[in-house]
């Protein structure tokens, strides 16, 4: 069963490529997680938080007016955008924060790109009375200023990272450096299905509730499984979350849409599986964007949350065994889909999630009106109003000043 993969390897991907200083912490986390997974107390605590704090189960919404632009296929959105804090990220954060508390850690650190994971982590830290430091590339603190303010309001310290490309990958480097130095009292709350084992497996497991709920909901609504499930892929947490429940349904096609930036054939993209090759980055072997010397190449995407030159090892494996397909979506395709969903359905998606919508429009044209497509709407677009406002020239000239 494809759903039974437990790591540390997925085929030839995954592993633990980290300084020795971190191995003890990873072992401790692995042991704690393995215990918690089958501990009814832990599961009950998490379920309680899902129900009374996050707002789970999240609903599904069929979007017929949008679907007219997707070949007339039935398009159904899994509404992770309606979760508390505005995206799927909270699922993983609450799970890991509970684990951190069990381990007696009093300080949470996190990296963030778009800021959604940072906001979710700051939220959990506030809820559990822990201190919180969020590393965020300086470029991202500028384009996601609202989320920076949000994190600070929640009591977190936001550290703008000024090294390297000053984006998500450098924020992860600094978070790892912090963790090496403070591992005794600190949990590194990694926000995606990348990094060293056990993170890829653990983060996937905390998100797989997305697919489990959606599979049941789509069956209830349509009487059958969807023909395809789609999601955007940066590190790949929301995609793994919705894919996982369908991995062993061979008739359900899985599509991950990567950020192609200005085009996957240009040099300004974040299409890691489409254009990268296997290597080691941030503690795991997976696909990554790199030059011939193995130096990481800076990625580009209009969406901060997808602007990452790596991808989770389980996605690399699903790609190589042919179980999931990974396709590029440009900045402009995503932005057009963002506006289209806003205008046809009154739902403003995150730019990240808009990549999945743009991919779904193309897929719907291929599959035709008989098809049912389930889309993970992983986040809401409130945080992206600056970017969207500038992109579509929505600000009045005066107000822009």
């Amino acid at each position, binding site marked *: 069963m494809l759903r039974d993969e437990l790591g540390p390897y997925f085929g030839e991907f995954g*592993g633990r490529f980290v*300084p*020795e200083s971190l191995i003890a912490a990873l072992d401790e986390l692995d042991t704690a997680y393995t215990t918690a997974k089958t501990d009814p107390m832990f599961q009950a605590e998490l379920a309680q938080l899902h129900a009374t704090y996050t707002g789970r189960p999240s609903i599904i919404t069929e979007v017929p007016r949008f679907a007219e632009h997707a070949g007339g296929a039935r398009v159904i959105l899994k509404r992770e955008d309606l979760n508390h804090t505005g995206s799927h990220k909270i699922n993983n954060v609450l799970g890991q924060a509970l684990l951190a508390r069990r381990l007696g850690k009093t300080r949470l650190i996190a990296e963030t790109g778009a800021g959604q994971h940072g906001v979710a982590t700051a939220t959990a830290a506030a809820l559990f009375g822990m201190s919180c430091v969020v590393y965020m590339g300086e470029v991202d603190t500028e384009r996601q200023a609202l989320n920076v303010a949000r994190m600070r309001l929640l009591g977190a310290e936001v550290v703008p990272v000024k090294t*390297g490309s000053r984006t998500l990958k450098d924020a992860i*480097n600094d978070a790892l*450096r912090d963790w*090496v130095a403070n591992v005794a009292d600190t949990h590194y709350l990694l926000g995606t299905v990348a990094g060293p084992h056990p993170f890829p497996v653990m983060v996937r497991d905390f998100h797989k509730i997305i697919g489990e709920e959606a599979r049941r909901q789509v069956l209830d609504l349509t009487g059958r499984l969807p023909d395809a499930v789609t999601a955007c892929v940066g590190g790949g947490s929301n995609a793994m979350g919705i894919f996982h429940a369908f991995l062993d349904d061979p008739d359900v096609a899985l599509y991950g849409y990567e950020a192609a930036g200005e085009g996957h054939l240009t040099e300004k993209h974040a299409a890691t599986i489409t254009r990268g090759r296997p290597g080691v980055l941030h503690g795991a072997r997976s696909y990554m964007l790199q030059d011939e010397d193995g130096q990481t190449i800076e990625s580009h995407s209009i969406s901060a949350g997808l602007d990452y030159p790596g991808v989770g090892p389980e996605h690399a494996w699903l790609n190589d065994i042919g179980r999931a397909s990974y396709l590029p979506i440009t900045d402009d395709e995503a932005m057009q889909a963002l506006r289209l969903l806003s205008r046809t359905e009154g739902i403003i998606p995150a730019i990240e999630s808009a990549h999945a919508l743009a991919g779904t429009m193309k897929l719907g044209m291929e599959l035709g009106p008989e098809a049912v497509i389930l889309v993970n709407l992983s986040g809401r677009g409130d945080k992206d109003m600056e970017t969207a406002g500038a992109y579509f020239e929505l600000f009045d000239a005066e107000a822009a000043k």
Partner: protein
Amino acid sequence: MSRVETVIAARKAAGSGALVGYLPVGFPDLQTSIDAAVALVENGVDIIELGLPYSDPVMDGPVIQRATQAALADGFKLGHGFDAVAAISARVDAPILVMTYWNPVLQYGVDRFADDLLAAGGAGLITPDLVADEAAGWLAASDRTGLDRVFLAAPSSTDARLRQSVEKSRGFVYAVSTMGITGARADVDQAARALVARLRTAGSTSACVGVGISTGDQVREVLGYADGAIVGSALVSALADGGVQAVARAAAALAAGTVATGPASE
């Protein structure tokens, strides 16, 4: 015994221990980095740790990050690393260990990297983000070529993991003095002394302490219980601030800490 082990053993026999000096290739430029490495040896450094600049150096603090980032921005290529090893070993006898994050080796090809390093006159590799558990390819390539392989040991490592680091390492075991990244510290942790004692119990006869050491006095203190002291950021700072002359002075000051003041500790 490997060349590195021979050097360390000789320094111990003389009542002290080895001084290992780190500098990155290509900073501030390729030729100056070669000259600076030569100057280290001419001023009392016993073993050179030559760093290959890498885009995502998670084990390095701000001083080394700045230097390696500048080298990359200036056009550092992996081939320059082999050029530098060859140029330095043509001028001085000290063994040269290349310190590199794992992905560049993986992309170059582990066997090809080992062959080219050996051909250039290198002594082996220090791999900060490769634990022995993940190192099957490198264990085989280093056995085939006889290159040294230095794995890390940390204060947080279990006894079983320390034994693994000792068993798999050749040349020396890199004892990480403190839970943290590279960079000067006023006090080299008590943790280092405890770690080296645990490494002895695990069977190590060649343990060098690194991270945080920046003065001759600290070198002397560390050599009181360890087989070598590794200095990086302090040398890189000197090179950045005052060029080859400054790094030569810094090396000489650190080497003062290797002058035997009493009988051999073992």
